[in-house]
């Protein structure tokens, strides 16, 4: 049999035994390299497997994110878990089912076309045959079987599990307060640890007042020092925590490069050395003089992941083997980074995923695991648990870089863009582990060199350039990307990467053009949006919100729309926001229409879309990482406020049905459109536009005073 095209994840891990096994009668185990980060991915994976294998969901156990057990599928990121990981698992299950049916046909002496599977049992022309996956499993060597691409997944019309809302598998344990999070893991004889952080890369430990730290601890503690890496360990967490909180005041450093509040603003990027590149249409010939032009610049400050709890990692180094427990989004890349940092063979490292607080990207999870591993390697035989302090998570996690997006367009006679240039300044959106990049490792003797500056390649959706290419029908478009390699703090991936600032810029700019052309923003968009799926979500959300053209501007009450297709290849989403602006913005209501292709778990997908809307609203209204006194100064929830319950509006979400078996990632689809819808609504309410994020009280007041 020749190999048809296999989905990428399966092509890289074609061994079927890596995905599916039948460990005991009536039981199925499936494996996925993707991990649960609160997005409900394991529930959706279970649905896909139940559908293709024709077994009840209750029979299936799932293992995920374990370098000893599961396939290497890189990171759980980029809204790709279902679009790629789920599709790979689906195909693997279809292959397994086909393989078993071929064996059953041999055993029963019939044609496979006479056979079907019902909850794991083999039927022949509708009648039980006494054979099932488990009776056949002894004869089928799954471990040796490889995917061939010959079995195709079920047609959508035959789905009975996929496409129906399923309750989250992980939720009951969380509602009953069970020990499900990595923070709740208790290993035998476990030692607690806190790290005394280097204030910046290259800082040297000058002095430690151990006596003062011991006094603060009020319990037994030990110090672990290796180069400029300093940790406090002990068996009583309260003592270790008190010592860890006090320690920064009793340690001095040399070679600290302080950062200043000037660097916190996006505009600072404009003066910095950058690596420049351009993509898209060549520069236009001098445009006819009578052509109208429009230009505007949009900015956004650094954003934190601001996970609800600080990161945690556990490690045990025993008999030459290092085991690490982590809530990282990528167990294999983390293993590679640990191997490099500790000079160990990856074969002697096992990395296991355990659930953590929602991370929305590359937060401190990998670094906390790295800290635990560094300490464990120096204290063989002791299980080490590192839990970051809240201020440490705010102050030392990688943040989403500040961005400047300048859009310039030459307009046609109808006032629509005929030539479009987006110019972007940003630090990198990608400093995930894999090639070093562990914070603790920077303090070790002979630290790994700083990774060369790079952003996510365009082929993977781009970092700062993500969604910079508008989906509208514009004859000539180009992007000029200035990657600023040196940023005041570490920057890396946060939900949507550059998509939020880019979509905010594009969609704000379109509203500005619509206003110039005296056209309704919805009609103006539709007039230059050929993609039928894009049109459908814009039309649907306008209907949901009972959109009306020509509502007066500047009344204090506003309505705005925003649209994007995430990465121009994942889910489509259009959002309308209603709000009031006085000194601050009060969100009244939000509507969203999305086309996510084949939706595996509609309720789960709606939960993701809504979470993205609320998080984006929080970014737009409130969030910015602040610098002062030499470092990050937004170190608690007062300094880094997020949207609270009474500030969250009611939200309505509808899916636009799509005739396809291709699922499109949803986790990040609403971030950009929500930011844009709010921005456009604020401008409608005020009659003047704010192009800087976040739209804090100070910014609104300044705008009102200037206007």
């Amino acid at each position, binding site marked *: 049999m020749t190999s048809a095209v296999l989905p990428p994840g399966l092509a890289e891990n074609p061994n079927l035994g890596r995905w599916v096994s039948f460990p005991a009668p009536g039981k199925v185990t499936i494996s996925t390299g993707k991990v649960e980060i609160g997005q409900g991915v394991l529930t959706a994976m279970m649905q896909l497997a139940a559908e293709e294998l024709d077994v009840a969901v209750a029979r299936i156990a799932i293992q995920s994110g374990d370098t000893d057990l599961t396939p290497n599928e890189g990171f759980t990121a980029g809204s790709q878990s279902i679009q790629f990981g789920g599709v790979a698992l689906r195909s693997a299950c279809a292959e397994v089912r086909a393989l078993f049916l071929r064996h059953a046909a041999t055993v029963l002496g019939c044609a496979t076309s006479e056979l079907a599977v019902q909850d794991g049992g083999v039927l022949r022309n509708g009648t039980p045959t006494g054979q099932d996956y488990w009776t056949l499993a002894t004869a089928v060597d799954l471990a040796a079987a490889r995917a061939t691409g010959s079995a195709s997944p079920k047609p959508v019309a035959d789905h009975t599990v996929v496409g129906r809302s399923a309750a989250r598998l992980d939720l009951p344990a969380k*509602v009953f307060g069970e*020990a499900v999070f990595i923070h709740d893991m208790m290993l035998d004889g476990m030692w607690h640890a806190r790290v005394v952080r280097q204030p910046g890369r290259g800082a040297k430990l000058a002095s430690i007042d151990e006596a003062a730290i011991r006094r603060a601890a009020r319990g037994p503690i030990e110090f672990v020092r290796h180069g400029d890496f300093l940790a406090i360990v002990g068996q009583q967490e*309260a003592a270790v925590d008190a010592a860890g909180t006090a320690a920064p005041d009793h340690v001095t450093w040399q070679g600290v490069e302080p950062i200043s509040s000037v660097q916190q603003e996006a505009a600072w990027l404009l003066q910095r050395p950058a690596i420049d590149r351009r993509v898209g249409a060549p520069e236009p010939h001098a445009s006819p003089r009578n052509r109208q032009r429009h230009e505007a610049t949009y900015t956004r400050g650094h954003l934190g992941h601001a996970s609800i709890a600080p990161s945690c990692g556990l490690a045990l180094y025993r008999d030459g083997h290092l085991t690490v427990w982590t809530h990282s989004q990528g167990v294999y890349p983390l293993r590679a980074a640990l191997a490099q940092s500790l000079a160990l063979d990856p074969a002697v490292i096992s990395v296991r995923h355990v659930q*953590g607080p929602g991370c929305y990207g590359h937060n401190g999870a990998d670094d906390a695991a790295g800290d635990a591993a560094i300490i464990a390697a120096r204290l063989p035989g002791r299980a080490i648990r590192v839990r970051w*302090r809240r201020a440490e998570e705010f102050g030392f996690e990688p943040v989403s870089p500040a961005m400047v997006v300048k859009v310039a367009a030459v307009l046609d006679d109808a006032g629509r863009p005929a030539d479009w240039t987006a110019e972007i300044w940003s630090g990198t959106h990608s400093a995930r582990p894999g090639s070093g990049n562990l914070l603790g490792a920077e303090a070790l003797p002979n630290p790994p060199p700083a990774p060369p500056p790079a952003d996510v390649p365009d082929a993977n959706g781009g970092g700062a350039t993500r969604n910079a290419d508008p989906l509208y029908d514009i004859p000539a478009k180009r992007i000029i990307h200035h990657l600023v390699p040196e940023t005041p703090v570490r920057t890396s991936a946060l939900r949507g990467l550059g998509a939020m600032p880019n979509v905010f810029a594009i969609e704000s700019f379109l509203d500005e053009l619509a206003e110039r052309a005296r056209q309704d923003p919805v009609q103006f968009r539709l007039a230059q949006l050929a993609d039928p799926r894009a049109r459908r979500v814009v039309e649907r959300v306008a209907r949901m919100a009972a959109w009306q053209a020509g509502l007066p501007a500047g009344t204090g009450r506003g309505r705005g729309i925003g649209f994007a297709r995430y990465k121009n290849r994942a889910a489509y989403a259009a959002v309308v926001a209603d709000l009031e602006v006085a000194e601050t913005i009060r969100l009244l209501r939000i509507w969203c229409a999305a086309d996510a292709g084949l939706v595996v778990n509609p309720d789960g997908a709606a939960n993701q879309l809504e*979470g993205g*809307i609320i998080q984006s609203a929080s970014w737009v209204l409130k969030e910015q990482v602040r610098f002062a006194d030499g470092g990050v100064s937004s170190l608690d929830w007062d300094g880094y406020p997020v949207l609270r*319950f009474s500030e969250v509006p*009611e939200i309505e979400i509808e899916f636009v049905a799509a005739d396809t078996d291709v699922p499109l990632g949803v986790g990040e689809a609403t971030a950009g459109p929500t930011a844009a819808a709010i921005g456009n609504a604020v401008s409608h309410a005020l009659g003047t536009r704010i192009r800087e994020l976040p739209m804090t009280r100070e910014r609104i007041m300044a705008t009102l005073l200037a206007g």
Partner: protein
Amino acid sequence: MPQVDLSVNGRPVSVTASGETPLLDVLRNDLGLLGTRFGCGFEQCGCCLVLIDGAPEKSCTRPIESVAGKAVTTVEGLGTPARPHPLQQAFLDEQAGQCGYCLSGILITAKALLDRNPSPSRAEIAHALDGNICRCGAHNRILRAVAKAAARLRELGRR
């Protein structure tokens, strides 16, 4: 080290700890009650909420000596999978949560709210929960779940 006697989820317990040890630390590390979560350690996020004599209190900074003789209820004390509290059932019915890390504290706040106000409006529920952070954006589901539990409790009360 002094001994502190208190009641946790209806059972008398006695712990030996220095008086300023946070209640949260005692619950998690000494009593093995891991449902009450650590979020910030400075009374800003609501992850660590418990009921102390029926009132919602943050346990992350609460010295153990200050709860001597008092009754503490944690999320584990609300209900079990076999006998879920109507709030827990409503959270499952509404699929109210994403990562779920915030839920223990939110359930405790909601319990205290419904004890004093059996029919809160959406705005009243939201206001009561303003001391709890949910970073995943499960707010609306949580608000619906609390309203649903309130209705259920009223129904049970009428029987």
